[in-house]
């Protein structure tokens, strides 16, 4: 029982500090789970990060699930995941309420007018950074180009494109 509470509290603490998405959480989890609590060795942690990166889902959720499972089985997974999501849940819901309440305010509308182009720049920068790491040979450029073309020119479901590129990976990479 004690360990479940400890899992929840630890991951809620990590979740509350993870501004800017999952990758920010990795050093946080490292310092809490490996260095402070000693729940995992740093080799185990590196393996978890690699698995979390390969599997679907946000990296923070994957890491919480894995650590929770190692510490206390299925229940541990659920509790650690609930913990990491909890702060986002509270904060984002408050944000949604506030925004809905002030949706007619000119200040909010003007603020959003400034936020929208920044979001475009933010996502473009994510594409750039990820591309710089990933587009390393002709094969990867071809896959990226084919997927982009399909997204832009057809109404194909992006999920099908992900599945297709899995197939391409298995056959050609």
């Amino acid at each position: 029982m004690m360990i479940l509470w400890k899992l929840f509290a630890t991951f809620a603490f990590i979740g509350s500090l993870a501004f800017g998405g999952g990758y920010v959480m990795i050093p946080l989890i490292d310092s809490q789970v490996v260095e402070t609590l000693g729940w995992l060795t740093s080799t185990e942690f590196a393996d978890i990060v690699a698995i979390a990166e390969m599997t679907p889902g946000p990296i923070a959720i994957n890491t919480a699930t894995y650590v929770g499972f190692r510490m206390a089985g299925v229940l541990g997974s659920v509790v650690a995941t609930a913990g990491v999501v909890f702060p986002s849940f509270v904060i984002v819901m408050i944000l949604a309420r506030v925004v809905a309440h002030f949706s007619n305010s000119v200040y909010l509308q003007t603020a959003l007018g400034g936020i929208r182009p920044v979001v475009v720049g933010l996502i473009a920068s994510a594409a750039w950074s990820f591309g710089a790491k990933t587009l390393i040979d002709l094969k990867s450029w071809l896959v990226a180009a084919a997927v982009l073309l399909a997204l832009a020119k057809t109404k194909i479901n992006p999920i099908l494109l992900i599945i297709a590129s899995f197939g391409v990976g298995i056959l050609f990479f």
Partner: protein
Amino acid sequence: MDNNRSISLTQLFIIFFRVGAFTFGGGYAMLPIIQRELVDKQGWLKEEDFIDMIGLTQSAPGPVAVNSAIYLGYRLRGLGGAVSSVIGCVLPSLLVIMGIAWALSRYNLDLLNRAFAGVRPAVVSLITYAAWTMGKKVLKNPQTIVFATVAAVAIIAFDLHPAIAIVTGALLNIGLNRPRKEESQA
């Protein structure tokens, strides 16, 4: 878009389950999936609401996919919507990771590795496409183009934190455009 009873909690759960199951390489890759489901197919959201959602949720802690699920679930169906969306979003991770943690030895890691080598370039294009469709909608005058370019360069070249870029964009636009009660600017 607020608390629309015709949207069922099961629908939200299924949509975000799909989002969670196909989010690879960080949250932004799932944006075209959400966009297709909620904006294009169901028409529950306007493109602007979708872009605002990203800006707002990125100034709160948490993964993009999870925050999007909470925000959109809440706006579309209140507390129940937020709960069913977020459970849908994290459930695939829970199942997959528990499966892997359980039976790691049985996995052919080489096959898995190659499969993911094929997905990574696709992820680049998913993110690029999200930026492109939003850019077409948002970048309509010189100021917005400057905002977007400066934000992208500052984040790539100077490691500027996204939350800081978002707050700066909001304040700068209020400072530059001086909103007044009777006129609405964007």
